[in-house]
């Protein structure tokens, strides 16, 4: 099964579970969790079920396209269900079956892995799912987001698309994976991997990036104070990516590092709070069915 078919299969599977199929969010980010479709929407009492593919940029993981396992940008298939359904593990295992993974032929395990993202004030409990010893999915019950208690609890499934594909297609090198018939990951991503790595580690303009970080931060702050949570959050994401670029370049010392993370976290927390307030002001519109019933 090629990657394109995998994505179609997963989309179909989760669409059948009444998930809204979204597209990737158009601001750079390090993980699918950071999309507002997860991070903000997981907050508050409104039900929310969504699935999407998220290209995730991790500048420090860039390897000039030379490493068979590490990428500047990889893809995550992200599922959020709030509240977490009681049969979520079965739904997940069914999705693996849909990808042609017969559990009787393999060893599938849920191995404890508690997830934490201090930058976003987020934490959850759950597992990494092992397929014959390989981590293919991060399975997390959110407990806290943006410093707020997640209530009801949203469950997050993050499939590592390339990881899973390397198993399904039995390939050693990520660049040999078939994206679709006759087109490999290498065909599409080798050049950007090389160029992004070169840019990140050698060519990026540090002074400009430092400047951008401050400007994005100010804009986020200002926008948030106007109660515009979504645009404010976009600037937080930009801060985060800019920070990642500077960090990968090795120009942020360890002490400074803590400071920068704290600045992003403060913003993310504030925005999380404002988001819930804003939804409440709107009367939690997605709760309206339940409200009218009661």
């Amino acid at each position, binding site marked *: 099964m090629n990657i394109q078919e995998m994505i179609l299969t997963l989309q179909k599977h989760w669409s059948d579970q009444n998930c809204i199929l979204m597209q990737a969010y158009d601001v750079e980010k390090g993980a699918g969790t950071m999309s507002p479709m997860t991070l903000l929407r997981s907050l508050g009492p409104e039900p929310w079920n969504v699935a999407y593919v998220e290209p995730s940029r991790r500048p420090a993981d860039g390897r000039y396209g030379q490493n068979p396992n590490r990428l500047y940008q990889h893809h995550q298939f992200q599922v959020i269900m709030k509240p977490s359904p009681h049969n979520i593990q079965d739904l997940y295992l069914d999705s693996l079956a849909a990808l042609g993974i017969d559990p009787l032929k393999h060893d*599938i395990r*849920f191995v404890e892995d508690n997830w934490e993202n201090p930058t976003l004030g987020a934490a959850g409990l759950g597992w990494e799912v092992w397929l014959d010893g390989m981590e293919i999915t991060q399975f997390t019950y959110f407990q806290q987001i943006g410093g707020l208690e997640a209530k009801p*609890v949203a469950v997050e499934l993050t499939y590592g698309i390339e990881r899973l594909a390397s198993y399904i297609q039995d390939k*050693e090198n990520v660049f040999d994976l078939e994206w679709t018939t006759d087109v490999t990951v290498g065909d599409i991503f080798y050049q950007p991997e090389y160029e992004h790595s070169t840019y990140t580690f050698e060519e990026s303009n540090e002074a400009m990036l430092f400047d951008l970080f401050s400007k994005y931060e100010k804009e986020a702050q200002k926008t948030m104070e106007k109660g515009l949570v979504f645009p404010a959050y976009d600037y937080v994401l930009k801060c985060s990516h800019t920070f990642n670029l500077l960090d990968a370049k090795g120009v942020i010392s*360890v002490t400074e590092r803590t400071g920068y993370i704290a600045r992003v976290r403060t913003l993310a927390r504030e925005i999380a709070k404002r988001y819930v307030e804003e939804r409440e002001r709107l009367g939690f519109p997605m709760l309206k069915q339940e409200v009218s019933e009661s």
Partner: protein
Amino acid sequence: MTTNHALLEIGLEEMPSRFIDDAKQQLKERTIDWLNSLRIPFEDIESYGTPRRLAVLVKDVAEKQPDIEEEVKGPSKKIAVDDDGNWTKAAIGFTKGQGKSVDDLYLKEIKGLEYLFVNKYIAGKKTAELLSGWKEIVLGLQFPKNMRWGDLNVRYIRPIRWVTALYGNEVIPLEIAGIVASDQTYGHRFLGKRISLKNPLAYKDALLQQFVVVDSSEREHMIVDGIKELEHNKGWTIPIDQNLLNEVTNLVEYPTVFSGGFSEEFLSVPEEALVTSMKEHQRYFPVRSKKGELLPYFVGIRNGNKEHLDVVAKGNEKVLRARLSDAQFFYQEDQKQSIEKNMEKLNRVVFQEELGTVHDKMKRVVRLTEQLAQHLNVKEETKENARRAAAISKFDLVTNMVNEFTDLQGIMGEKYALLFGENVTTAKAINEHYMPRNAHDSLPETTEGAIVSIADKLDTIIGCLSIGIVPTGSQDPHGLRRQAIGILQILKQQKWNISVEALVEASLSIYQQLGIANREKQEIRKDSYEFFYMRAVYIMREDGIDPDVAKAVLYNGIGHFAFALEKAYVLMDKRQDKTFKSTQEALVRVLNITSEVLDREVDPELFENTFEKNLFQSFTNLLEPYEAALSSFHATRALEALAMMEEPIHQFFDHTMVMADDHKVKENRLSLLSCIAKRIYQFADLTKIEWKQQF
């Protein structure tokens, strides 16, 4: 009495393996306590645990509580009976409240006062009606980490997905976290199916048929047997790490052992990295030859049966291959760097906010190393090796390998140092400066390693104490206690002639010069002494030395720790030795009468009797051998020297009045005793010892 068996099983999403054994134990103990508090008799109880279930089976649970007759105390006779001898309202109220009449009342005296009593018969309730309370036991289990799920308010180790509760063949009516109990349970996630249990006793067997081995010791046996079989068939040696075995036992419901291999080329990567990859990351058992060499194979445990085991093995091989390629890549990349480049990077790695970067720390450690080497008067070559090892001791912290495998700090340092052209001793000292890494680790073998290890640990301890990081209770994030114990163990082994107090002083003055401390030097010194004192007592206790003896030899600080230990061993021996009784009494007699312990002028002209003269002579004779014994740290000889004064001391006290009327004579006698006391205290404060000679 009629009895039935009772079973409770909680089905959960996969629990963390490290919490399962404890949860299982709690479930059992709490159930016992609860049944006892309900006065429900039972024969036997066993609990079980797998990643997906916690269960408890209670055999022969009585069908009802026993009936009991209870004596209920009422008001005192004074209130209960009026002047005419009739029952008052209080008495009647009491009987009504108990569902009795005044005819049932009787009087009993308690502490001189009479009170009303009735006997009340309480019929035992049916067990079936009480078992719903099991719910509270389940929800009362304590876990180190809890979570919430769905829209429930329950906090538990993992989401609860089913509850099986039977008393005899009846379902116990209870509901936990929105789940209604039934007689249904679930087999292995993939190999088993949902089944109905008709009888609690059938629990284990019924689940075994569904590929769930509920008893963890049975799962452990299956794993060990599988490993033994592989050893036998393939001629391998597979060392079983008990921690890993416990973990994998609780990661599966139905274990099957399998093996896989990896390319021999990876054997060029340092073995420690390969072993860490296999054990820590993948939970595999590494494989060795009969001679103990690492072989390119591994053993894993599948949660399932033997079907398609080849596919599972192949998948695991692929994962391990990716991990080992990473390790190999890191190993090769690290070799392209140099010690100097790594040292530069350490300028940016913070050791501790107030104590500066790792680079700053190494500079302090170099100074301590130089001072220590100087003091110990080691060979020039040793000094140079130690200095170099200290100067680059942390360079491996910024390598890819240590970044990935943090346990390999020092180990990679040694290997890379050799590759970068450092001499063998320096390289080894880099590794050894972390030793002892834990309570069971070995100590540095080289003098260089021992010196740098002490310097590094000392710098961390005094640095932290200087800025107010003092371990309290279970809080010791920098492992200061372990490091202080490490220093003392090295001093004990090396028998170096240096006092702990001098070490503390050396580090203190470096911090003072750098102006880092934010507390008074005197306070830091006091805390440091106390901190080391506690560890010294701890080590002594571990070595079988009683606290009073430890106190006696450490009364004036730790000093030369190995010598303090020697003295303690000798005293532990002597305290039981009846031939030493008289000696000890003599020495303690001196200590008891002296308040000052210093050399005072003794004037032989003022002696009035021969006993004084003899004692003085004996003391003078003692000085040379005693001081020789002390300076060569020979505890037995030192004590023997002191013992030579036994007879003269007794004679002196038996025939001399110390507190003579003549002031000069008295002072002269006290001066003599004070000189002797000073020598005894140099050995130990013998008054602190509880002498235990048996007669």
